[in-house]
């Protein structure tokens, strides 16, 4: 069977590990090992990236929409009215990986701005800010989950 793109990356990794690594001088082994690890972790990422980004975009959009409902009711509107435009843009981007990644990045930027605003509005320990604090917790929980998804795509820390 002819290997697909991911299979070709695996072949390349095996070739570097078994044929090239034993033959290179010691000064190059560290970088070559890094290259092999980079290849392997990238292959894992690519294998899961499209559905991951798709799910995360959907989740972030839902989170930001909820934030918009809550925060627009406050004296300081925080979630921009650009959200609906961004939402449309993301839907168009869902057709392929690279445009989906661009939409995901824009959503993350929007999420960062919203999260900073939320943190300022919902300081810890203020009981009267319960609804904002609950929303803040949701942001952290969602983003923690997104980070957790990527932990297997790195090799620096235990996975």
């Amino acid at each position, binding site marked *: 069977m002819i290997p697909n793109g991911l299979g070709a990356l695996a072949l390349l990794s095996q070739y570097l590990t078994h044929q090239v690594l034993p033959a290179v001088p010691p*000064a190059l082994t560290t970088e070559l090992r890094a290259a092999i690890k980079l290849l392997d972790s990238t292959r894992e990422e690519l294998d899961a990236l499209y559905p991951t980004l798709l799910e995360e975009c959907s989740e972030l959009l839902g989170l930001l929409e909820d934030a918009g409902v809550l925060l627009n009711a406050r004296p300081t509107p925080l979630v921009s009215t650009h959200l609906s435009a961004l939402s449309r843009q993301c839907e168009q981007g869902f057709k392929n990986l690279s445009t989906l990644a661009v939409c995901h990045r824009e959503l993350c930027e929007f999420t960062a701005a919203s999260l900073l605003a939320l*943190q300022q509005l919902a300081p810890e320990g203020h009981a009267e800010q319960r609804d904002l604090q609950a929303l803040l917790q949701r942001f952290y929980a969602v983003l*923690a989950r997104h*980070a957790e998804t990527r932990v297997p795509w790195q090799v*620096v820390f235990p996975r």
Partner: protein
Amino acid sequence: MTEAALVAETALATNLASLVSEQLGTAVQIVNLRRLTGGSSHETWSFDVLRDQRSAQPLRYVLRREFARSSINSRLDVEFALLRVLSELGQPVARPAWCALNDVRFGTPCMLMERVTGVDLRKYLAARGSAIDRPALGRALARQQAALHAIPLQALAEVLPPRAAHSTLQELAQWTALLERGGGSKSRPLLAAAQQWLQANAPVPDRCGLVHGDFKTNNLILSDAERCVILDWEMAHLGDPVEDLAWTLLWTTRDDLVEGLLPRAEYLAAYAQASGVTLDPQRLFYWEVFARVKLAAIFCGGAQVAADGPPLRLFDALLGRALPVLERDLAQMLASCVIGNRP
């Protein structure tokens, strides 16, 4: 090795011979020159110096010099001066030899210091497994860390600038600047959120001491004399010693000080006993958040690709991919603040 690398290495050996013979006042020969792996801000070379035929023992040195893709903005002259002071104080450091900031032979600032014979503690732990008394070594290193923090500030006054009461924010600004240069937080909500939290919750330092800034097993050399020599002082500064402790707590595999040699609580207890300081959990929590942002800054700074700059090192690319681990931790830590669950 490529021809260009061979030429560069030969030139380096020639220049080292020239420098060392000037300093020693005798002709020397450089042998066993080889580049050591690792390093985020400097490249490191190991070499031996032969003085003449009658001299049986070669002199062992290490050359550290800046390279173009350094992710950490450190000053070799400060590090050199600090090593000299610490060496004179009897602290376990490699003895510095010479520092050349503007020597055209080397192109970039460099420093030479004695090469400590021994093994990187991380590698030693990995190789020896449980065949060593890990708790005893862990307690000894906690004592060593406390001893660094207790060095009188007047001994360091000429080397490290004194820090003001707002030194925490100064320290934070340094790392957030690196994070931003690396494109870090704009599209990474948790890094942005953590920076904001750190800015808003910075504690006023209640004591000031020498912070090594990277006190962990791969910067400790277990020397032939069965003592640990502390390397890599490029991030050293004066500040809150709890910052140093929190950085050490960040590394928790079986080959690290914490959880590798001692469980976290025992390491903290050993440090507290040695330093005589009661650790404030909130202060420690702050610096543990800080440690993750600092490491994220180092990762981002190293992994950025400048269109007109030198190519990205693969090792730095690998480090950059580890950001989600730090982000996951930060999410959990920040969430604990919202529900008032912080220590």
